[in-house]
């Protein structure tokens, strides 16, 4: 139901009341902003010297490197998780019982364990076998982060794809078999393309989650944006203090901008998919949004009845 069903078109009294609420609400928000700025100013965070550090070439280079290493992890983990997710989805849908059991077990285990726990365990593991692992050992925190993100997000992407495959009408599969297509052909030519197409917004939303979760690198001391910024802030002293607050505010803006960009792509694709007359229902971009966690499309699905998840 559109929100307008919940209330009548405002009459004169309601209009006055709405204006009062508007003024009160805006005043409250404005008050909060003013208060924050006042307090920040009082604590000396708004001093020009504090913000002047961002004019420093070294600081800028630090932040740029942080962004680049965040993006590096994101690109690698994003691509790998899509590939592994595809494999896991196909494995879980396989007719061979044991393959589908193994895939199911893998997916359920790594989806249930917090990503941070996985990454940390991998990190410690890599560090303790540093010498035997070669490339991975040299860069333990990077690979722990990438592999942890890959495994976790692959499990979620696999579930998304599986939901997409299950949403393809049965008749199409039967028709394909009747035409004499083989199992592999049905999967690659019929099911997966439609699954990917209908689930694209959810897949991209999960990529947003991947991007957000790269910040867990902070905890395994990988120099992604958050960690780089924090170490940088610890090394700078302005007016006798570390400018942590200012740096955190700037980094927050960068993160939000990156994630917003990616999620608006998801929303755009969703809108575009709804307009196209392909007969494929497109899932919600907000689906999982970031409830990093779960069968995508659960949240926010009932509305327009896009593909039902795994039922």
């Amino acid at each position: 139901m559109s929100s307008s069903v919940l209330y009548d078109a405002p009459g004169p009294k309601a209009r006055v009341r709405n204006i009062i609420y508007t003024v009160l609400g805006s005043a409250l928000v404005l008050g909060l902003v003013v208060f924050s700025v006042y307090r920040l100013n009082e604590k000396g965070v708004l001093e020009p010297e504090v913000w002047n550090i961002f004019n420093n070439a070294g600081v800028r280079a630090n932040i740029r490197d942080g962004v680049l290493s965040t993006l590096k992890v994101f690109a690698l983990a994003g691509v790998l998780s899509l590939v592994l997710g595809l494999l896991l989805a196909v494995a879980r849908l396989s007719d061979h019982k044991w393959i589908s059991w193994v895939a199911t077990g893998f997916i359920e285990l790594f989806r249930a364990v917090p990503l941070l726990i996985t990454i940390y365990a991998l990190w410690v593991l890599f560090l303790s076998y540093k010498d035997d692992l070669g490339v991975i050992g040299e860069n333990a925190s990077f690979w722990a982060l990438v592999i942890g993100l890959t495994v976790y997000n692959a499990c979620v992407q696999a579930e998304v794809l599986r939901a997409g495959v299950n949403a393809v009408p049965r008749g199409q599969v039967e028709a394909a078999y009747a035409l004499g297509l083989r199992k592999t052909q049905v999967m690659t030519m019929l099911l997966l393309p439609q699954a990917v197409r209908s689930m694209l917004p959810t897949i991209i939303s999960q990529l947003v989650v991947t991007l957000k979760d790269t910040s867990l690198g902070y905890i395994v001391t990988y120099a992604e944006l958050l960690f780089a910024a924090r170490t940088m802030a610890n090394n700078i002293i302005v007016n006798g203090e570390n400018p942590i607050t200012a740096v955190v505010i700037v980094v927050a803006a960068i993160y939000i901008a990156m994630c917003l960009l990616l999620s608006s792509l998801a929303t755009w694709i969703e809108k575009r998919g709804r307009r196209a007359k392909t007969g494929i229902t497109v899932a919600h971009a907000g689906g999982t949004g970031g409830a990093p966690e779960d069968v995508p499309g659960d949240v926010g699905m009932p509305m327009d009845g896009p593909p039902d998840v795994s039922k």
Partner: protein
Amino acid sequence: MNVLLDHLPEFREGFIGTVLLTLSSGLLAMVLGVIVAGFRVSPVPPLRFLGAAWVTLFRNTPLTLLFLIAWFVVPVIFWPGLSPWTKAILALGFYTSAFVCEAVRSGISTVPLGQAEAARSIGMTFIQTLRLIVLPQATRTVIAPLSSIFIALTKNSAIAGAFSVAELFGVQKLLSDKGFAIVPIFLFVAIAYLIITFTISGLFRLLERRMGVAR
């Protein structure tokens, strides 16, 4: 098995920590989420805008960053000297509230139009319509997504452990710092999380069955 038995007190404390953290920040998230969802469907445009901004902001911020903000920005602006526990609850609760809000909002949109129309036609105000008619009926559809949100919250609470709050990730960190083999620790911590998440999904399934109405 030794690691578990020798460090049972630590594991128990961590387990209880995770459960309490999940419960308290879940409660905060529920309250905030329902209020913000109310904002998002309200007749006052700026409130709608505020709700939308809230959701967009918190959904696109990494949780680790929210933790950093709770640790380094909130004390500067509001009260210095908050306990790590309170700051963790604030970060987790605010983050999760955005997802609760979206779940509630889509639940609201599944309630048949006629219900709200009938409520309005007998003269109920917006708040009465929402509180007495629409929200109680929305609960039914909201339960399933809420269950996944709470499971996500449990898993997200691990990040609090990295910020020196006593919970399961803290246990893993402590024991691996002491030099115990990581694989068994990982498995035990994983099992502990599995217990919590299975309990949550079980409880919600029970709730769903209780609330489900034959249609």
